[in-house]
């Protein structure tokens, strides 16, 4: 459509002027049509652009930095006694404070107003120490001044009178309100754990001994627990017992010496605790806490470093306490308070100067640091949803902050680097995104998935590229036109085969077949390429009379029976060969002699299946590029006396090579994004093993598997979108590059 005709068609008013109404209506229709096409066309293009924008909008929040927003500041409400414990409820609206005198004060976190206050029963002797027993159940254990221990729970009831949400704090005594006998006088560093029908209380007494007492829980039919006093253990640790940490599953006990900066690491069993070893922290210790999940501990050091430790196994299978990583507040000031989130591996550290820093343990990352207080930080406490952080200074001022920290798990290292996860013996690349409980540490390494994607694509290309390009060369250059007319639609049909069918055949037919006939597969790979030139040679030996009957360009058709025969021969020979060479079981032989493991659904199967899916793509584009090489070039070469093969290699292929290159690129793009085949033909195990006989998991299959179960807006959800965006950009880039190359080539051909 050239400019002139367009100008004529969209006639200016001058043409219409003075014309009959019918003519005007026609031109009106014309301009309406123009508008519809403009709006429709641009709308469609906009919709396609929207895909990219939308994916990006889901991914970007991952990289938003966290921030805290001051909510209020007030003097801690309630009696002026020393504070021993603070907490806030799920919604971050009500705070709880426990004083050394035994006052239990609930207060509004917006204005500091006291909602209710009471005294804990039997707290006449004052409260020496308090410790969280169960964060989810709101259970807190306290040790009274007389050495006895009691457990109370603070839970919150929601009600909606007049459609207004009202939160009512409730105090309960899950183990009865009668204190449990434990020590004769108050000790230090109380820990209480409830696990497998037992309540275990531990603390350090004045002599520096560690006392462990066990209560057996008897649950009655009505669900109340009664406690029976059990064994009492007492031992003297090699370090001063300033801080005790007891693993929730009761396997490990840490005794920490503040001044000396040493950790004594005990294994608990049925009998006496067994000292595994004593570890040097490197500087004096200020505080130590369990992270959520109950596996890692974080130790705050006087030099402004927080170190993370957990039990790991050494080469012999023995346990040791590993210092996994260190976090720096960056201020160098001594740390005075630690606060841990309940559901994620996030913790906060406050220092002497009032700075508070947030860290994520697995991501090995400082999320933010801000000066929240003017005086040393004494308490840091998150509410269970971790949207609210309570910071209490040494002067008793409470400052509340709304925390916006949606995706602390993401860091460059967490996504791409080796990470030392809890319960593993060394840093690894792992993808394990979901679990039933928040105790599980999500493992978000994209490395194994990207590796799997590239591995699958690599083996697929290894299979497809030679077949497709050689096939394209023959079709474009040597094949008889009649045969070409039959072959090209066949290959197009191959392209149209739904990948779900290829995947199904690969997973349920090819995989077992290859497993049962592995020697046959290899024999075919060796014998088939060898037999072809031989067949050609044999053909050139046949008498001229027979040869001349077959017109040129039908070699491919003649080879079909040969290929079928060779393949049949290879598989017929496979079983006897397997018995002869590999003792009847090639996989077992490989495992025994070469140490190569075999998965039924492996890269070999994926390579073949996905190769079949990409062959037509590469073939069509490459064939097009070779076929459109101007005929005068090859004819000239042939006229100069070159053989057809010489013409092809020296003239045609160099000219068409950009087109072939773009064919490979587009094929690669398809292999990278293919979902159903890898979903069905690989075991979907995110392992990083380049072996041909091992499974893999690709980014696309991972999306298909995990997307439906992923919680909207969670880090996992956004990471899946990021994987999608990466796939989108990758294929888009590859295709654009290939398309540009092709267009250039077309112009070049046009000028020859």
């Amino acid at each position, binding site marked *: *459509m050239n400019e002139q005709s367009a100008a004529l068609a969209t006639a200016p008013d001058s043409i219409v002027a003075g014309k009959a109404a019918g003519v005007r209506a026609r031109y009106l229709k014309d301009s309406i049509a123009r508008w519809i096409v403009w709006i429709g066309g641009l709308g469609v293009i906009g919709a396609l652009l929207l895909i990219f924008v939308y994916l990006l909008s889901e991914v970007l929040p991952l990289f938003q930095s966290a921030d805290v927003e001051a909510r209020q500041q007030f003097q801690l409400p309630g009696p002026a006694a020393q504070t021993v414990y603070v907490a806030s409820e799920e919604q971050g609206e009500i705070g709880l404070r426990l004083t050394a005198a035994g006052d239990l004060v609930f207060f509004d976190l917006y204005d500091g107003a006291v909602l209710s206050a009471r005294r804990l029963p039997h707290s006449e002797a004052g409260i020496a120490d308090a410790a969280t027993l169960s964060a989810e159940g709101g259970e807190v254990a306290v040790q009274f001044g007389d050495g006895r221990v009691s457990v109370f729970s603070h839970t919150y009831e929601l009600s909606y009178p007049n459609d207004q949400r009202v939160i009512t704090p409730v105090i309960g005594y899950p183990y009865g309100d009668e204190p449990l006998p434990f020590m004769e006088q108050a000790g230090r560093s109380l820990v209480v754990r409830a696990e497998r029908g037992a309540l275990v209380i531990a603390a350090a007494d004045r002599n520096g001994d560690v006392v462990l007492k066990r209560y057996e829980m008897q649950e009655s039919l009505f669900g109340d627990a009664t406690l029976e006093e059990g064994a009492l253990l007492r031992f003297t640790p090699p370090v001063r017992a300033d801080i005790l940490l007891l693993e929730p599953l009761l396997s490990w006990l840490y005794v920490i010496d503040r001044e000396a900066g040493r950790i004594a690491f005990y294994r608990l069993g049925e009998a006496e605790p067994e000292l595994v070893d004593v570890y040097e922290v490197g500087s004096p210790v200020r505080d130590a806490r369990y992270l959520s999940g109950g596996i890692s501990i974080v130790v705050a050091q006087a030099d402004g470093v927080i170190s993370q430790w957990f039990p790991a196994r050494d080469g012999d299978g023995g346990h040791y306490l590993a210092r996994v990583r260190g976090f720096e507040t960056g201020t160098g000031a001594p740390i005075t308070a630690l606060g841990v989130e309940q559901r994620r591996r996030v913790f906060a550290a406050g220092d002497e100067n009032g700075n508070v820093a947030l860290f994520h343990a697995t991501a090995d990352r400082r999320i933010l640091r801000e000066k929240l207080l003017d005086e040393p930080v004494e308490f840091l406490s998150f509410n269970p949803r971790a949207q609210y952080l309570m910071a209490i200074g040494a002067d008793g001022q409470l400052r509340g902050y709304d925390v916006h920290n949606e995706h602390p798990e993401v860091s460059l290292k967490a996504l791409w680097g080796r990470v030392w996860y809890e319960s593993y013996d060394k840093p690894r690349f792992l993808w394990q995104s979901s679990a039933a409980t928040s105790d599980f540490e999500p493992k978000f390494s994209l490395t194994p998935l990207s590796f799997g994607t590239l591995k699958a694509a690599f083996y697929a290309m290894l299979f497809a590229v030679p077949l497709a390009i050689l096939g394209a060369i023959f079709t474009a250059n040597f094949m008889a036109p009649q045969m070409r007319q039959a072959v090209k639609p066949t290959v197009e049909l191959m392209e149209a085969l739904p990948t779900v069918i290829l995947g199904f055949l690969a997973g349920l037919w090819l995989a077992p077949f290859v497993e049962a006939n592995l020697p046959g597969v290899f024999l075919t790979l060796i014998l088939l390429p060898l037999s072809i030139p031989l067949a050609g040679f044999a053909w050139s030996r046949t008498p001229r009379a027979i040869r001349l009957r077959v017109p040129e360009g039908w070699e491919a058709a003649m080879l079909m029976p040969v290929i079928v025969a060779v393949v049949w021969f290879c598989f017929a020979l496979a079983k006897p060969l397997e018995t002869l060479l590999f003792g009847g079981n090639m996989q077992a032989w490989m495992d025994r002699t070469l140490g190569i493991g075999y998965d039924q659904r492996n890269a070999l199967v994926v390579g073949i299946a996905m190769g079949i899916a990409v062959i037509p793509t590469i073939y069509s584009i490459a064939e097009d590029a070779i076929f459109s090489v101007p005929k005068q070039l090859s004819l000239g070469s042939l006229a100069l006396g070159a053989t057809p093969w010489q013409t092809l*290699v020296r003239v045609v292929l160099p000219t068409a090579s950009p087109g072939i290159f773009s064919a490979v690129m587009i094929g690669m793009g398809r292999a990278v994004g293919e979902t159903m085949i890898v979903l069905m033909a690989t075991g979907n195990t995110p392992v990083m093993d380049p072996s041909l006989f091992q499974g893999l998991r690709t980014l*696309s299959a991972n999306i298909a598997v995990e997307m439906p179960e992923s919680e909207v807006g969670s880090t996992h959800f956004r990471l899946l979108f990021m994987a999608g965006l990466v796939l989108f950009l990758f294929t888009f880039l590859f295709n654009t590059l290939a398309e540009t190359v092709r267009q250039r080539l077309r112009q070049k051909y046009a000028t020859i």
Partner: protein
Amino acid sequence: MHSPTPNPAAADLTVRDTGGVRSYVKSGQPYVWTTAAAIAVSVIITVALLVLTAVRGMAHFWPADLLQATYAPPGEAPAPLLVEVRSAEEVTGARLQTAGLPIEDPEALYTRALVKVGNRDLYGADFRYVVEEWIGDRSWPEDATVWERVEWGNLHGFLLSASIDGRTIAGPQAWTAYREAQRRANELREQIDAIERDEIGAINYRMERLRLEERRLELDGLTRAQDTAAFAALDARRAALDGEYAELNAERTRLYEALNRDSIAVRTIDARELTVPLAKLVAGWQPNDMNLLQKIGFWFGKVWEFVSDEPREANTEGGIFPAIFGTVLMVIIMSIFVTPFGILAALYLREYAKQGPVTRAIRIAVNNLAGVPSIVFGMFGLGFFVYFVGGSIDRLFFPEAAPAPVFGTPGILWASLTLALLTLPVVIVATEEGLARIPRSIREASLALGATKAETLWRVVLPMASPAMMTGLILAIARAAGETAPLMLVGVVKLAPNLPIDGNFPFLHFERKFMHLGFHIYDVGFQSPNVEAARPLVYATSFLLVVVIVVLNVAAITIRNRLREHYKALED
């Protein structure tokens, strides 16, 4: 590079064409043969895949003979077998030994056969592997019978007697009597199905709507105490429905009683005697007694059942009608979206937009979207259509259904829209190609005669481009019919309780989830508890899908080729 002497390779080729190996290699012929082999292998693979699916899929419906034999692995007591032989393969003794079989000679080759033993309720599995060398006393008794059951797969055995309406019939008449009674039972079952699914289903649907209406009234601030009339009307309608339900329920109970009247006594091969009510049976046949014609008739019957029946037993038995229905409906809805918009975009790009670098960039971008992984479109569909658009619709129009989502959950509308986006590039590219092929002279002639641009497009260009659009649409449909990955995210389910179209207002339920052939293949093949039993069914489903897609593609290719010739004629 060029030497003055003649090309030696070519000389060998032309002068003595029966030269030695050297001249054969020099001539480049081995390489040519290798390239020929590459394309031959590709074609063989395509054909082999089609043949494999066709044979495996279609063989499933053939009534296989029942082999009666004794199976005696070394060192074990012989056990009787009554089985269909499914497949057999050669296996090395060593592999069988690894599998724990008492192989005497690991060097030897054995034949391992997969046989269907049936009677899953008795033996725990439908299928087992047997070593053919250990099978003896083969016979094919004419009265060996296969019963297809509603549950637990097939039953293999011998008919002892039929108990019909209180009378026990044994001997040769038993079979005829059983067939007659089975026909009656199947009719009754169909009636029950119709009542349960259609009529009671409709009542449940209306009840649910009443509940939502009531909830809506409450949300609007009305209370039972104040607005007696509104609520009383609802209560009256509910009472009417309850009455209808009671009637239907009585009818259903009566039919169930009639259905449970008859039973048969069956002896299995291991001499267990079972009494099976006909209500539990679907059909029975004696394959060894059937002649070829009967078998062919049986085969067609089974194929028809396959395409027209509902699935049973976690999709591993019965038909795939809902999946076919879902696929077709989704493709139709998708076509309604993709055709106009694809054509508009192509018209814009080719006829209205100024041809320049921007248009070229857009064209490349649109082209490349066809290469973007389909799963990415699925994510977009889930995030944007389902959660964002659907969630907004729910908040605005369906507050009474909360917290249950209506449109804010995957469904057929969202699946169709997602696939429309996915196939948009296909339609755009094909239409554009068609538009580009129309010679300029034709357009200019129309304009010269005084037609406006819109008239030229509408009367001249579009009719000429219509086969190209058709090609684009067919290719889009073929792609959509086979696409599975994105659908897994936006609305396809393993088993949909209702079709997206039914007799309840508004008849077409856009928000419902649906079944799809491609997903059916994935689900039954890979998520099914009984893979061996399901596998032939998956082959059959695959074959059906392949046939549909091959037909669509052949149509598209034919139209395109005709078109090309047509324009060549025009240009000359």
